[in-house]
């Protein structure tokens, strides 16, 4: 992953971007868990709120794919539906894992 380029796009240095990415991984994992609990407990508004939070943070960081899945989940949640939410949450988990791997490579690289 091109952390240098992503940091440059935001006008901040790479070190700060990596620190923010660490924070992003932690908060987003927590929000994905909230989405899943919202689905399990039949609380679509909880899922929508957590997705809204991911959408904003991912959008700000430039993680467009993640922001797009979050947008879809938020929309469904606000409509009171869960269609596709499980699959999109899985996709977000996968993206988050890839981000973790990239961060690990960055540390060792």
């Amino acid at each position, binding site marked *: 992953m091109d952390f240098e380029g992503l940091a440059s796009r*935001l*006008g*901040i240095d790479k070190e700060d971007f990596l620190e*923010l990415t660490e924070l*992003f991984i932690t908060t987003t994992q927590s929000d994905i868990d909230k989405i899943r609990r919202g689905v399990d407990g039949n609380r679509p508004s909880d899922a929508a709120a957590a997705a809204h939070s991911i959408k904003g*943070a991912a959008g700000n*960081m430039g993680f467009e794919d993640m922001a797009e899945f979050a947008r879809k989940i938020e929309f469904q949640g606000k409509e009171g539906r869960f269609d596709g939410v499980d699959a999109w949450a899985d996709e977000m988990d996968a993206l988050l894992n890839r981000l973790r791997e990239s961060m690990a490579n960055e540390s060792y690289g």
Partner: protein
Amino acid sequence: MNRMDNIQPYSVLAVDDNLLNLTLIEKTLTKEGYKIYTADNGPDARKIALEKQPDLILLDIEMPGENGFDVIKLLKDNLETTAIPVLFLTGVSEVDAKLRGFELGAVDYITKPFHPQEVLARVRIHLKLSIATNSLIQAQAGKLRQVTAAQEAMLPQPKDFPHAGFSVYYKALQEAGGDFYDILNISQNITGYFVADSSGHDIETSYMTASVKALLAQNCTPVYSPVESMKLINDVLVEILPPGKYLTACYMHLNRSTMKLTIVNAGHPPVVFMPGGGEPELIRSQGDILGMFSDAGFGRISLTVSPGDRFFIYSDGLVESAENKITWATGADSLLPVFAGLKDVDRDRAPETLIKELFGRNAQPEDDIVLLCVEV
């Protein structure tokens, strides 16, 4: 205080329930020299705004519990935080939210997801606007203070008129006061004392004060009787004053050679007369206001006076209270016992003593006040 003296950075309060957004804003703005306060909920944000008085607030709309709309409304309702500019953070498609934010007093919005450099640019723009607005307010206040100084320079001081035998208390509630007085050396033994209260406290009023001062100098001469002087001044004022502007006034003419005193009243509160060592009484006389009617008639009373007699001319601020619905027509009577307490007070200290007696040491009068004490 000059910020540069203490290198005091501009401060921004960022409010967002999303920790990552807060951190991103904090990092971006801190590096550019701003002091950042953060809050992840409405009540904490309002508490920080009140305590720290930030120069600007970035406020997320969508927050659990007290949302951004609730927060901005409460900030704008509080006098201590109402002037702090608020920029809100909102989704790009949320037109209603943007409009509602503006209605509630926000100065701008930033769409989410936001770019940190856009946040920085908008913070800079709105701080510049805020600085410019504050400078404008300071400049305007400075000009008004100059008007006050100019107006006060037009008010004669007892030390400059040693033969006039007067002392005075003057207090303008606003920068451009509506009350005015003048002392006129008509001849070696004749002195004129003029007190007026004009309608309004604006800049126009201060120009009116200058005009009246010039008219008094021109028309209060040995050639004219006191009533003639007032009629001449009235005729000019009727021509030059804008609609709705007028004055109430009292002109007292004292001839220390003949010991004759004449009071001309133009819709003004009654003069208080304190015979040397005697009880105070009101000298009432009817008269039209100045500057409104070309055929105005003024009340005129003449007295023979003795050394030591005192006369108090004052504006309605001394007796009137809008709060307590008191007008000078009824309020003046209640003044007499207070004046009675001034028998043993020096002329120079009499006005100040009376004001303290009436209003207490710290109470704020509701209107401008001029109180002139003249001793024969």
